[in-house]
Structures are given as C-alpha cells and as structure tokens.
C-alpha cells in the first residue's frame, strides 16, 4: 500500500523534519481528494482529455509520498486518458479500485507519521 522506504528517504532528504513530512502528507491528502473528484467527473463525462491532468498529477504526487498503489492506478488512468480509451477493461477496473485504495492508503500514511513522531 505504502512504500516505507520512499517515506524514509524523503524524511532523510529534509533533514529528518517530521513536521514537514506530516504537513506534506496532509497536503497530499487534500490534493489527492480533489484529484479523485476531477477524475470521477471526467470519467462520468467520458472526457478523456479532462482525465489526463488530475490522473497525471495524482500519479506523480502519490509516488513522492510512497503511495505506490494509488500511483499505479492513476498511471493506468492517465495512459487511458491520453489514448482516449476510457472504456478499456483495465481503465474501468482502475477507476473502480481507486477510491478504495486511497481510503486504505490514508491510515497507512498517518501510521507512518505517528511512528516517525514516536521515534
């Protein structure tokens, strides 16, 4: 769900500033919720072009905070958006899976923070 090595590396790269990582994860959760809404709206409207931008950003941000499963799903949607193939099986499965995966990613991220703050 969450690649802790990415979070550890990130943590180290900001001189162990746990407060920064916590704020960053908060920002990620806010932004990714917005991106999910935009993705769902684009899918409902079957607007491939409108799908690309939020999917791309979500893919990228998620990878930064170690949310690799979310990143992978967002990537599938970005590719589908670029190729205009929203109806592909893979794209539909990714769209269906995304909200649930995001829901389980959030507590994993918070748990990592709690652990880091306890260290």
């Amino acid at each position, binding site marked *: 769900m969450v690649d802790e090595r990415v979070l550890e590396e990130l943590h180290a790269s900001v001189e162990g500033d746990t407060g920064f990582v916590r704020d960053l994860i908060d920002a990620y959760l806010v932004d990714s919720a917005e991106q999910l809404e935009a993705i769902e709206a684009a899918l409902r409207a079957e607007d491939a072009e409108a799908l*690309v*931008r939020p999917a791309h*950003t979500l893919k990228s941000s998620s990878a930064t905070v170690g949310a690799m499963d979310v990143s992978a799903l967002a990537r599938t949607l970005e590719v589908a958006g670029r190729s205009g193939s929203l109806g592909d099986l893979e794209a539909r499965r990714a769209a269906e899976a995304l909200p649930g995966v995001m829901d389980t990613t959030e507590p994993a991220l918070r748990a990592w923070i709690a652990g880091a703050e306890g260290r």
Partner: protein
Amino acid sequence: MTNSSIALVVDDSRVNRLVLVRQLATLGLEAMEAENGIEALDLMRAHPGVFDVVLLDVLMPGLDGYDTLEAMKADDAIRHVPVLIVSGVEELDSVVRCIELGATDYLMKPINHRILQARISASLAAKRLRDLELEYLEQQRTLTETIERQKTELSRFISPQISALISSAEGERMLSGHRRQITVAFCDLRGFTTFAEQADPEELLGVLGEYHRMIGEAIVAHGGTLEHFAGDGVMVFFNDPIPQDDHVERAVRMAVEMRDRFAALAASWRKRGYELGFGVGIAVGYATLGRIGFEGRYDYGAIGNVVILASRLSSQASADQILLSQRAAGMVEEIVDVESVGELQIKGLSRPVSASNVLVLR
C-alpha cells in the same frame, strides 16, 4: 553553495513542489514555485537574472517541459539559466529530448538527496562561471569603448600616425627613442610678423585658420607626420613612425601642393590688403625620434642636424620658394625641375650648403 542562490521549481504537483522547495532549503537555496511552463516563463521574464537554476518537470498540463525549454532557449534574457529536468522513471526518452533541447542535466523521481545536491552544485558553478564570463565581457566591452573614444580624441590633438603608434604593440619601443632616416619639411609665412601686428585678432585667427586647414589637408594627403605648429610655422616629417620608401618625394609633392593652394589663398588675402608669402625648406638625413618633453607634456619629436637644416632652409626661402638640401634634391631629381640657389650660409653649420628651389613637378 551561496545562500543567495534562488531556484525556480516548476511542477504541476503541489506535493512535489513542496518537497523540492524543502530539499533545496537544506542546500541553502531559496525557491519560487510555478505550476506550469507559462507561469515559469512569466516569472523568469519578470525577474531576469534572479534565478540561478530551474528544476523543470517534463509532463505538465498547460505548457510542458519541452515547450518551456524551447521558449527559454529562444529568449536571450533567460537562455543561460541552467535547467535540471525532474523526471519519472518511465520518462527516460523525454530526458534525452530535453538534454538535446539544452537542459543541463536531469534528476530522477523520487529524488535522491545527494544526487540533488551534486546536480545543484554543478549547475550553480556553471551559472557562476557564466555570470563571471558575462561580467568580464561587459568590462571588456566598456574598456574597448573607452580606448576607442580616447584614440579618437587623441588623434584630434596629435598626428593620427602618432596616436596610432601609442596604441600599437611596438609603441613603447618606438617612443623610447630610435634613429631613422627621415625627410623634414618646414614651412612658414613671409610677412606674417607684420601682418600679426596690424590685423585684428579675428582677422589674424581667420587667416591662420584658412592657412592651417590647407596645410593640414596637404599633410594628410601625402602621409606626413605633423610634429608641431608654432604660429605660422609648421614642421612635418616623413618615413616615421610609418616607414615610407618615397619619403623625400612625398615631402616635395606635399610642398608643391601647398605652394599651389597657397597662391589661391594669398590672392584672396591680397584683396583684403594683406601681403603674405609662403616658403618651405626640405632636408633629408638621420634623426633621433621618440618621446621628447617632460612628465605632463610630451611630444613625439625628431632631433638632429636634418631638423636644423630644414628649418634654416625654410628661413632662407623667399616667397614661393621650396628649398631642398643638396641630398634631398639628388633624391628627387627625376620628378622635379629645380634651379640652384647657390651656397647658403646656415647659422650653426660650419660650412655653407648648396640648395635648390623646386620649380615644377614633372
């Protein structure tokens, strides 16, 4: 790494921007953010020279990394800012394209802190070098401009040959003194002292101005080096600082042109009641040439018997005479008709010298 370095972070993801800005802060860099290429270009153009490095995401909505790079490279004000491409693993092809478009280097996401540090250091060093180069070029340009202006100004005060000599590589050697065979021509006016006593100052300066203008044009036309003006007296020499194989011939041709043109001037002055005549003395021989004078006022001058001889010949010349020393006459006999004026007693020389007057150019 200096604390004053400023980076521009261009990424569509706020999370990515936050991370990069924070990581750059650990390296002592301040950072500004842009969400896409358009914002980035606007910022750079609004603050030219401010950004030391740009961290550029490739795939962005709006203006993407490629277009941003191309726009930067086409803009002289921002083309030299180093660009680090920030790229995902699956975008390696795009990295190659960015480097081809002029990006400095790339960073792979997720960003390794030590690689970031190394790349930023290298980019800032390159930028500093580039800034130093620009600064140096600017100084160079200002210096060249100043020197050119000084040369132009200098050539108004002294002979162009001598102003060129001063600015040349061999200038110091020439100025510090050398011996060379030269031809010296002295010219002055007959009746000038009387005229100067009688004429109004304006009239005096007016006549002198017309005379000097004519003299000056003839000197330039024949490539003479003007040594000095003293009232109506003018000393010109040839074959230095620029060598001239035909230096005697040049001096004679110059003198003949002056005499012809003087006749026209004298006719107009005569109508105004002034009787003025023109005489020239020309001699050839070795002289010592170089910087003569004292700290604060130097002239480029010639010293030697040849100078004295030419000067004395000029004093002995009556109106419209161009007196040549025997040696000078011998060197131009093929181009002029001369008449002997016999032997002249010259003050300062023990023996009388024979001299000839130039009648006409053949």
